Structure formats: C-alpha cells, structure tokens
C-alpha cells in the first residue's frame, strides 16, 4: 500500500524532529498519528508533549506562538485546520513576512505554517469546503508558499520548508495517494521548481492539488483524440520565478495555456501565471477555468456544477487547440 499524504507528512516531520532536537509542532486537534505499512508514527509518543503540543482552539496562538519560538531559534511547525486558514493571515502578513526586512536582516522566522485546505468537498457548507486560499498568502512579501499534489512531493516539500530559514506556508489539500513511491529516508523537493507531469506539444495545462486528478484524466482523454497536452504542476506558488521558467518554456512551444483551479476565478491562483505568460508571450491563446466567485454550497448538485472537472478541462482544451 502506498503511503498516504498524512503518513508522508508525518514521516517528514518525524525525520526532521530526530535531526533537529528543537523542532516543535503546535497543533489543535488533528493528532499527528498515522498508521502505515512501515509502522505507526506517533509524534507525541516519540518526542514528548513539549515538542508536540496540542493547543486550545486558538490559531492565533498556534501561529503566533510558532513565530515567537522561531524568532529565538526554536524552529516550529504550526498546524491549523482548514476552516481557520485566514485567522493567522495578519500575523503572517505584518510580522512573519516583514520582520526580516524591517530589521535589516536581523530577524528570522524558521517556521512552517502547515495549513490544511478543505478543497471542494460536498455536504459541508461554505466554511468547510474552501479552496484557493493559497493565493492570498502567495501575494504577501517574504513568504513562500508550497502546495504538493501527491505524497512524494508533500514529504519533500515539507522537509525543504522545515529546513528553510524563511517562513513557508505548506498547503495540504486532500489528494489521493498517487505518484512516485515515498522513500523512507528524508529527501528534499526544492521550493520554487515546477514538475512537468506529462509532456506534449499542443497545449500547456497548469493546475495543482485536487485539480491534478481531473487534469490527469483529461490529458489521458485528449491523448486518445490525438491532442497532446503538457501538464505542469507548479508545486510552489511563491516565489514563482522558477516555476515560470518551466511554464514559459512550455508555452513558447505550445502557444496555448489552459489553467484549472479549485479556487475561485478572480484574483486567484493561476491568475498570476496567466498574467505572466500574457506579458512574456503575447499572442498566446489562454483559457482560465476556475470555481466561480461564490462560496461552496453544501448540496452536491450545486457544488459539482460549479467545480472544474475532467470533462470541462478536456472540452476547453479541444476548443483552445481547434477553435
């Protein structure tokens, strides 16, 4: 059985906590415990309650506490549940992202904000079925934002995030255990590098996290019809320059860009990618698919009508290529 996303994440933290005796996890109710083929991981049992601390329902503390700790050289991971992703927004904006600059390089926050993201799940209601929040973080100076789409990337990106001396937002969306097998040993997936998931010449498709499942299906479907798509998973949203190199290279070749988001349409995720391509490569034919600018309704009928799926991606791709 492949390692799950959660297992891969906890394995990353376990390895780093063994390596760095100060690394500390603050969390709320989502126990850092996972069972897998390689044996169960139980971080509190292994590292004790000071280093693996469950907290009150107080995300301001979890993130602010992690910031304070990390300022005195105790690296910290702040894990907060999905519906609370914006409670620490001000802390990350005005403090984590600015203090190094404001102090002329003196201050550092070696911390990771491990933010759960709900994704567009049905029967929950809008507060518990959101996506796209990462773009609000990606626009804040001084912060890095990574979004793995599979357990392999999750482990490698999280280790990179933990070892980074700058604050990193690690966004965990619910994605199935697909992709490369996850090695037991620590390894790094560098922040700022996109992954080319499939190569192709007719158009470039960009998307991440749960959308990768839909895109992969669409790419397979299109291939049967003779349309080859180059599918790029950015993995990092900020800083974006490295990611853009890969995307621009691909779009220079294909001349067409299709992006697909679970986040809402306006001012969101792939918008920045689209804008950069438009600036750099005028003439590119571009289509942006996304969730509408609306909250996510609980009723599955409404929700799935609003979400981008494989069929819609394939249809948009056909139109871009043929239209």
């Amino acid at each position, binding site marked *: 059985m492949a390692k799950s996303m959660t297992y891969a994440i906890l394995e990353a933290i376990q390895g780093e906590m063994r390596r760095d005796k100060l690394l500390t996890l603050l969390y709320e109710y989502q126990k850092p415990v996972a069972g897998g083929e390689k044996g169960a991981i139980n971080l509190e049992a292994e590292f004790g309650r000071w280093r693996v601390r469950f907290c009150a329902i107080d995300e301001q503390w979890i993130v602010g506490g992690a910031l304070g700790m990390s300022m005195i050289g105790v690296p910290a991971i702040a894990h907060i549940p999905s519906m609370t992703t914006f409670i620490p927004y001000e802390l990350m904006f005005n403090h984590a992202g600015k203090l190094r600059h404001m102090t002329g390089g003196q201050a550092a926050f070696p911390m990771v904000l491990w933010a759960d993201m709900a994704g567009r799940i049905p029967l929950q*209601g809008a*507060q518990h079925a959101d996506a796209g929040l990462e773009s609000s973080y990606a626009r804040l100076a001084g912060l890095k934002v990574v979004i793995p789409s599979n357990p392999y990337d999750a482990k490698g990106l999280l280790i990179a995030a933990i070892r980074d001396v700058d604050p990193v937002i690690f966004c965990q969306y619910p994605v199935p255990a697909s992709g490369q097998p996850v090695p037991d040993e620590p390894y790094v997936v560098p922040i700022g590098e996109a992954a080319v998931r499939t190569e192709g010449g007719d158009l470039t498709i960009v998307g991440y996290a749960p959308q990768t499942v839909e895109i992969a299906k669409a790419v397979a479907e299109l291939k049967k019809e003779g349309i080859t798509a180059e599918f790029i998973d950015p993995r990092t949203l900020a800083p974006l320059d490295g990611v853009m190199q890969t995307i621009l290279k691909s779009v220079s070749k294909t001349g067409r860009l299709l992006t697909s988001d679970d986040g809402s349409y306006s001012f969101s995720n792939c918008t920045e990618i689209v804008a950069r391509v438009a600036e750099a490569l005028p003439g590119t034919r571009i289509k942006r698919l996304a969730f509408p600018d609306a909250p996510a309704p*609980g009723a599955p009928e409404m929700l799935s009508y609003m979400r981008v799926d494989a069929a819609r991606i394939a249809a948009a791709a056909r139109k871009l290529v043929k239209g």
Partner: protein
Amino acid sequence: MSEQDKTRQTAGGRLGGAAGPGGAISRRGFLRRLGAIGAGAAVFSTAICQRARAQYGAAAPDGPTLEQLTAMYTDMLKIRMWETKIKDLILGGGFRGVAHLYVGEEAIAVGVCHALRRDDYIASTHRGHGHLIAKGGDLGRMLAEITHKATGYCKGYGGSLHITDVSLGILGMNGIVGASHLFAAGAAYGIKVKGTDQVAVSFGGDGSIQGNFFSSAANSAAAWKLPWIGVIENNGYQIWVRAADVYGIVDLAQRAQGYGIEGRVVDGNDVLAVHNVARYAVAKARAGGGPTIIECKTYRWYDHYGAGGAKIGADGAFGLGYRSDRELRDWMAKDPIPRFRAFLVAEKVLAEQRADQIAAEVRQAVEDAAAFAKGQPLPKPEDGLMNVFAQGAVALRAG
C-alpha cells in the same frame, strides 16, 4: 441582587452549593421564584424545588408558567428525538449530510431559549440543532436542510452547520468556533442603537472562549453594558481535547472577571437551574445592567461529529478513545430529560399520562419531519451561483 446571589456570582461559586433562601419559603414565594424575572430573582434550582416541594407538597404552577414548563419539556424531547433520529439515519447509511449531535445538552438550549422572547436574538454554533429547535425551528425544514434539500431552511446551501431561521432571531449557526459570541455582542450593540429592550445570547462550547472572537465580545459588552449573554456549554471536550490541558482555569466563567463581567456557573443538566440563571441574566440585560457569562457544565452523549461508537436504537456513543464509557454512563444517569419529567410529574405540572402523550406526539412529529424531508426536491445545480449577492447570479467559470 440578594446576598446569596452575590456569593454565587463569583465564577468559582457553583449553583446548588449554598443555594436557596433557607427553609422558609411560602407557596406564593415558590411560584414567584419560579416565574421571577426581576434582577432580585436569579436562582431557582432543583434543590430549591425539592425543598419547596417537601414543604408545600406537590403543586403545579398555573397560568403561563405551566404552559411554559410543558413547552420546555416538549422542546427537550424534540431535540432528543429529532437528533436520535438523525443518528439512526446516519447509521442506516447513505445519509445526505453531516451532524454534530447535541443530545445530552438539551437543558441548556431549552433553559436559555425559554427565557427569551421571540424577538430576542441567539447566535449558535456547529452543535446548534438544539438551539434552533428551542427557539422554535421547524423539525421538517430543519431535516430538509441538513439533507440539503431545496426546501430546507437554507435551500440546501447550508446543511447542518449553517441551518438557521433568521426570522426567529437566529443569527446563524456558525462553523467557526467562537464567532457566535462576537456576532451576538455586535447584535447587542445594535439593540442599544435601536433602543429596544431585546437581548442577544450567544452559545459556544468550552472551546469557544479562546481565539479571537470571545475576547472582543466580552470586552465590548463589559465596557458599554451591552445586553449580551454569553452561554458557555462546557461539555468537557473540544473534540478530544480536555479544557484542563489547554486552559489555566477550571471554571470557564472565571474568564468573565478579567473583563469586569458577572460570571455564573450552573449545572447544565438541570433545565430549571439554567433557565433561572438565564432569566436573571435576561432581566438584568433588559434593564440595562449589562452582560452575564453563564457556564453550563454538561456532557455530549455522542462523538464530536457523526455517529461513531453509536448504535441504531440505542443511546450514547461508546468505545471512543478519548473518554471512558463509565464517564459517559455517569453522565447519562444525569440525563436532563427524565430528571425534568420527574420534577414536573412530582410537582403535578404534568400527569404521567400527559407526559407519555407528549413523548408520543413528539415522536410522531419527528417521523413526520423525516418523511417530509425525504420527499423534498433536490436543489437545482445552477442555484449555487445565486445568493452570493442580494441581486443576480455570478458567472460560471468552470467551463
């Protein structure tokens, strides 16, 4: 406020400790106490009832109080049976919705909401079915909503976490812990602007006093004596986290002191105890006396969420890792419903037969609600684009 009340008003003091005005209480006094809402009234606990009963024999309050007591009993049963039905539906499989069950805590919603007028406001939580029912919610439309039907309270958009009836003065159930307090305090400010004598009550769990919202509510309510009542439903757990491990205080009503607010601790499984403190707080708030924070100690019979550890046709969720079955059984023995029924029967508010009849009627109402909800239509897919703003629909961007 009486001297006894004063001793009890510090957060540490527990209702039912040194309770009641000693032995000498006249029947009229007892009834007055039961119905009292003046600032001097404050406390009416089972202990007092028992003493009163011992002295004057069983006696039913008459007039509106009788009706009200019966209505309270009925509402407690409604919550219990409606939610037990949900639990059974979930366990039956294929339930089109989610639920955080309130069973075991009915005395709080009912005790508080029956101290309110229809035009008073409440702000509710993720565990809010009980609040909605106690404020007058319709069982059928509620069940239609938590199964996301087009004719549910929120037309299927909201579901269990957000089911609400704004026309009943309900400021929404809210899936963000603690937000209820802030919105109710805001509403309380609005009441002051309007110049009415309404009050605004927020419910929140033991987990709701931290985070950003509670503090802002409490400070503002204290500073300007807003008609806000913060009800803390302390059921001992925040999912599986115990308050003692994450707070530096034991009685959560102690938080009130830091803001200069009166804090009260009450047995949350005693509907009359809750009701009387609530009536006191409401009367005080209406009279311009400012806020009160009421901590109700209670317990939830089911898991935080869903029906894990539960069985169809049986009460309670057993075998959950974070709490012992014994703890649950001890609390089930303190079930607020039979306790209240026994009181009502003993006090001749209700005859046994009438009590049985009410139970049968409620059971039937729940079955009717379930049947109603089942027959309701699904929402139209494109309606998800509506109700973003008051006017119009947003564009579909998915393809």
